[in-house]
């Protein structure tokens, strides 16, 4: 059985360039073109955020599509559901903009379209093979893999470090 892929964050690789945010906004624009997207109204919104923690750590944050998604259970209008691929989605037609999901999301990654009063978040780019943020990341701080694949990579890296004597 094929496992669904997820977006993983490798904190040690993020340099805080915010390229992912731009790629995300463009992918969620009407034109899907950077130069046109800039002037679109309302402005296209990014769903990945790059936070900064002092003294100098950069943290990309995006919807984790939680297994026991608090937003989905809290939603008072039935607008939030999980697709077969495991992606948590908000149905804009059903969303009434009560912001209960914003109140319960422990990651703070649900945004608000103020103009239309609809909540939005990472949709893992349903039209793309690889989500735009992952595809654009110049340092591969964001990776799109299965849980098994990703943890396998981590083990491999650890093994290599051990052999080379760095990870004692």
């Amino acid at each position, binding site marked *: 059985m094929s496992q669904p892929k997820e977006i993983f964050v490798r904190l040690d690789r993020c340099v805080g360039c915010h390229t992912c945010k731009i790629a995300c906004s463009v992918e969620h624009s009407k034109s899907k073109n950077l130069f046109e997207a800039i002037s679109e109204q309302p402005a296209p919104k990014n769903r990945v955020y790059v936070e900064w923690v002092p003294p100098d750590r950069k943290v990309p944050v995006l919807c984790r599509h939680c297994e026991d998604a608090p937003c989905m259970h809290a939603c008072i209008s039935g607008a939030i559901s999980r697709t077969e691929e495991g992606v948590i989605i908000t149905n804009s037609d059903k969303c009434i903009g009560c912001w*209960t999901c914003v109140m319960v999301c422990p990651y703070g990654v649900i945004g608000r379209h103020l103009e239309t009063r609809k909540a939005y978040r990472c949709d893992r780019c349903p039209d793309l093979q690889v989500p735009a943020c992952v595809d654009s990341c110049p340092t591969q701080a964001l990776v799109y893999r299965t849980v098994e694949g990703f943890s396998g990579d981590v083990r491999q890296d650890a093994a290599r470090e051990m052999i080379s004597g760095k990870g004692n």
Partner: protein
Amino acid sequence: MAVKQMQYLIIGASAAGMAAAEAIRKLDSEGSVTVLSDEQDMPYFRPMIPFVISGKKKFSEIMLIGQGPYQGANIDVRLNSRVETVNTADQKVSVKSGEELPYDKLLIATGSVPNIPSDIGGVEAEGVFVLRTIADARAMARRAETAGHAVMLGGGLLNLKAAFALLERGLDVTLIVKSPEILSRLMEPDDTVLIRNALNKAGLKLMTGSSVTRILSDSTGVIGVLLDNGGEIPCQMVCIGKGIRANVEFLDKSGILVDQGVVVDKFTCSNIQNVFAAGDVAVTFDPITGQRIVTGLWTNAAEMGSCAGRNMVGRPSAYSGTFGILNATQVADEPFVSMGIVHTKGTDYETHIAATPKAYRKLVFTPDGTRLIGALFIGDISRAGLYRYIIRERMSVKDIKSDIVNHRLHYGYFLR
């Protein structure tokens, strides 16, 4: 070895009951899950009924089964089935029709019923409403077709939403509250400026510090209300929103311990074996204060219902309690979130308030300033969930306090 098929019986088909049914179904595909509803309509998202009053949504658009986590697979929902008594000795309940239903595990999720103050006369007149069910919403919508002016009694959130629904239909709406401010359960008078402005802009007439002593009516139904100062306001409909109480009358002789609501332990079980309770009908505890509380919130009910469902299947699942206040909504153009302890007048809580013309923030810490216990955001509610997490997990805020106070908090801080 064949395992006996369990019979799960749930009284109440709203948030807690349906969330429990789904949780049971997830863990036990064999047992029978029966949900009894005293309403005539299939389960629906109760907080959405103001949209049926305004006409923005049809009933079919707010139905529950098939949406989000509610898939309803192999869950038997029986309508028009008001439970009259619960016999805990023989483990069965009797329904209004006379039918008796046995159970192995019982969940009481009967929610709450509206309070109707006894000091208001004439409440039985046609055109007086308490908004609780879809049937109430439909009746209000019908009356609103011919009414020109509606008077709302009580300044709680549900009444405000109903008021907006009527405004959207083009009615004049006057909201009368006894307390000096609206939403007094969710914020203090000084906190309400932005919300008040938004209400004024939307055209809602607000009368604070007054109350209605009598509803006046003739053969056409409501024709006005009489105020405590002797004044009279002509109107064609009245909506009473004066709080709720747990719906427990039918448990009188059951032996199930009731104190304001059904008293349950951390595992949502009542004092009687195999009888559980969740949602508005259950007395739960506030993790901040440790006090026992009854809440009236969809979100809490759904969470507690899922938890009860797991316990009924025999997967012990502790309910972590809930804040007495945990509300998010948007009133006209102003979104707000209120959670935890936000009433600080006369207390020694460390309180930080930041007010701008567009946004209002109030953060409440313990008197020694080491823990966050409440937050109120109006206008800008972004990342409110992080604050809820800090309050709920009783996190030490030492290193991030200035970020909390100055709205710079983000998930990155939790990774240190």
